[in-house]
């Protein structure tokens, strides 16, 4: 690799690479993000490699007319339908691709220009086959400022990133702009932290810039401890240079000389790709001494997170990099004054950093047009649960929950009713039907009793018990509490006990009041954000689903049929055909009845495993 010593050299390289890309007539992008890999994307990629080689089409082997380049790219977001393959230039989008499909794809689509119907996405409403990614309902309402590049580049190649305009924002920032100008631009853009709290990024930078120190740090928080959330992983895996570019710009703006990327250790591919990206950037001179001849020097190191949820909290994270126990401490003194090793430090989330090059390239004004008054830009959500299309969705702030769940997510599977959506990760709140038209932004979600958090979004259908949901999340948080401060350590444990009591049918109305009182104190008196937000699942479900709490406590009923202590399995005599299947399958022999006769469940013996209901073809087993 040849070092890039000046803006001109970078521009020249860009022109050359972009030109080459334009000449690339055909290319195949196979998603090799973690989710698609788990569905066999590597085998699909290998099959393409082999097939192209066999036909002498591989551009690596032979350049020229008809040759095809193959890219393993980052996550495209539609993970529920992986492995995903896009065939350019026509941008034909194939989903659920298996290695066996590959020879046919090369033969028919790549060479022959024909479509293979069965691999196209079928619109569940119209039944029509959709050709292009952007026409699929899942993508239509998205605004993929950050995610789009994931599908275009090989994250292991810095040249791919440069070819799509990468590092131009950095060049502009460090060569043409003063630190204050950059900070003003970020303030004007309205960018707020994507890691949870939504703190204005520009203000944070301004504060760090203000504090004089020969050593300052910038840190990228890629600890992503929310179970089920993986937007940071996808960005770091799929487009690590965009994060790095953001960090370089931020470091220059505040006067930092050293950066850290703190990556969750369960993210091997993200770790690999960011480490490689740093090495490549260093080799090209985009990191290190005197970047592009600007006089600005900066380098980045990688640290691995231990995997605890609280390890992603800012003060715990810095303690961990310093080699101390990852435990939060008071933050009356901001990290921007005294952070990592007591030096002024800017800590931002992966997604926050990835927004920075876009803001510098397109300008604050352009950026601030996207979103609501106080929440600008886009946000990536990880849409999961009882929803037809799961995956990563990037939407403009201000889109409604309804649009995300029903238009992008395709609604609730199996014709079931929507019951609630939990936003913001394990300590987010649950919002009901009546709140579906809320615009998704930091302040609206907060006011409704939930939060943006880092962007988890779990959809729940009618078969969900909201008390059980609250219990489930409080259990997670109780286990993840570090135990340092009293309200979080002791309070959450008692919350969990009370919720368990209620789901066991042993709760009282005083218990519900006590939950609210505990919730207030844990939220206000805890030391860190874990405790401060932990009562959300409880308080929001009491707020929106109080009926269900009352039913559990007073009527000893669980309407969703989830809480075992409160349900009974019975056989409806009219529906029972005497097929005898439940009799045979019941693991404890609780069902009696002769073949062709009516069957009965012995309530004393029944362990409520639900097998009889699952195996009954005649809808004769009911949960009451």
């Amino acid at each position, binding site marked *: 690799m040849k070092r890039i010593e000046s803006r001109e050299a970078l521009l020249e390289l860009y022109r050359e690479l972009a030109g080459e890309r334009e000449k690339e007539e055909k290319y195949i992008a196979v998603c090799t993000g973690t989710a698609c890999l788990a569905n066999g994307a590597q085998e699909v990629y290998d099959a393409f490699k082999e097939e192209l080689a066999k036909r002498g089409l591989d551009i690596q082997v032979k350049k020229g007319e008809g040759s095809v380049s193959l890219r393993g790219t980052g996550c495209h977001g539609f993970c529920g339908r992986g492995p995903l393959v896009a065939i350019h230039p026509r941008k034909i989008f194939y989903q659920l691709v298996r290695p066996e499909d590959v020879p046919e794809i090369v033969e028919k689509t790549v060479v022959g220009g024909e479509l293979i119907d069965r691999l196209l996405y079928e619109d569940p409403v119209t039944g029509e086959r959709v050709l292009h990614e952007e026409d699929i309902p899942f993508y239509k309402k998205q605004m993929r400022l950050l995610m789009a590049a994931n599908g275009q580049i090989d994250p292991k190649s810095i040249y791919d990133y440069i070819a799509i305009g990468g590092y131009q924002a950095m060049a502009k920032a460090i060569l043409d702009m003063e630190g204050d100008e950059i900070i003003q631009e970020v303030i004007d853009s309205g960018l707020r932290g994507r890691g949870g709290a939504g703190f204005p990024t520009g203000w944070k930078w301004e504060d760090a810039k203000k504090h004089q120190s020969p050593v300052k740090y910038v840190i990228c928080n890629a600890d992503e401890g929310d179970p089920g959330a993986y937007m940071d992983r996808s960005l770091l895996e799929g487009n690590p240079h965009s994060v790095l570019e953001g960090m370089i710009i931020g470091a220059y703006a505040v006067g930092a000389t050293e950066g850290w990327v703190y990556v969750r250790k369960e993210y091997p591919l993200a770790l690999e790709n960011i480490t490689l990206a740093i090495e490549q950037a260093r080799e090209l001179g985009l990191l290190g001494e005197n970047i592009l001849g600007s006089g600005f020097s900066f380098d980045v190191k990688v640290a691995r997170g231990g995997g605890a949820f609280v390890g992603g909290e800012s003060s715990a994270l810095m303690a961990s990099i310093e080699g101390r126990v990852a435990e939060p401490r008071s933050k*009356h003194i901001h990290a921007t004054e005294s952070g990592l090793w007591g030096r002024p430090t800017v800590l931002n989330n992966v997604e926050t950093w990835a927004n920075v090059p876009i803001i510098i390239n397109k300008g604050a004004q352009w950026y601030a047009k996207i979103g609501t008054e106080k929440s600008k830009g886009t946000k990536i959500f990880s849409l999961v649960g009882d929803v037809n299309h799961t995956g990563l969705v990037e939407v403009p702030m201000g889109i409604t929950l309804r649009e995300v769940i029903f238009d992008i997510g395709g609604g609730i599977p199996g014709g079931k009713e929507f019951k609630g959506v939990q936003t913001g990760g394990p300590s987010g709140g649950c919002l009901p039907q009546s709140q579906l038209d809320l615009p998704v932004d930091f302040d609206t979600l907060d006011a409704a009793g939930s939060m943006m958090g880092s962007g988890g979004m779990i959809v729940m259908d009618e078969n969900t018990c909201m008390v059980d949901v609250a219990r489930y999340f409080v259990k997670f948080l109780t286990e993840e509490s570090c135990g340092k*401060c*009293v309200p979080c350590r002791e309070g959450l444990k008692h919350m969990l006990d009370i919720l368990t009591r209620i789901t066991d049918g042993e709760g009282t109305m005083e218990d519900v009041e006590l939950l609210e009182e505990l919730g207030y104190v844990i939220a206000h008196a805890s030391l860190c954000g874990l405790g401060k937000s932990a009562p959300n699942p409880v308080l929001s479900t009491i707020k929106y689903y109080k009926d269900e709490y009352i039913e559990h406590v007073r009527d000893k009923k669980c309407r969703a049929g989830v809480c075992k202590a409160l349900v009974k399995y019975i056989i409806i005599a009219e529906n029972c055909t005497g097929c005898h299947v439940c009799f045979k399958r019941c693991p404890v022999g609780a069902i009696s009845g002769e073949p062709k006769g009516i069957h009965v469940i012995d309530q004393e013996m029944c362990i409520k495993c639900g097998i009889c209901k699952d195996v009954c073809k005649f809808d004769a087993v009911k949960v009451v």
Partner: protein
Amino acid sequence: MVKLTIDGKEVVAREGQTVLEAAREAGIFIPALCYHHEVKPYAACRLCMVEVTRGKRTRFVTSCDYKVAEGMVVRTDTEKVQKCRRMVLELLMARCPNLPQLQELAQILGVDRVRFPEGDDDCILCGLCVRTCAEVVGLHALGYESRGFHRRVTTPFDEPSEECILCGACSYVCPVEVVPVVEEDGYRVMERWHKKSRLVACTKCGKFFMTEDELKFLQEKTGLPEERLKVCADCR
């Protein structure tokens, strides 16, 4: 000098002092279990929380690690403060039902019931012993084990710590007095840390006054000859 008001009272504090220190010097009571002036604030018990107004902004903060500032208005008796304090104490009393120090505090704060099932612990996890050992003595004989509700203070692997010199600082600093030190048959014993060490007698008066481990520690630290160290404070 920094001027502020605490509960309506004008208070003059020194630069760099915490709100808790300033309040105490002014005779205003703020409960605090994890604070000790000899070690760094830890802000874990959350009993010392107060409402602080600076300019337009009111914040709910721990007074043990919040620094005084000119013109600051502090309230230690708001409904929010009381509600949180009482609940925190109630939670600690459920964890440790048999500590007289907590019961005394309950009288003062008006906590007259405990609505949670009683545990059988005696450690409130204020961390003062751990921090005193590390920050004052300079050793790491104690630490935490497990997280969340299962967190405990213990010696490494629950074995007698090799670092521990039985100086007793942890015992001295424990606000609920559950780290007893016993001297018997020429030994100093700390049951809680599974540790015992032979006592050394003063070469002048003959009284036992330190442990062999302490002597060794002092020798290493000061480089002084054994004869000089083996004289007790009274005879020196």
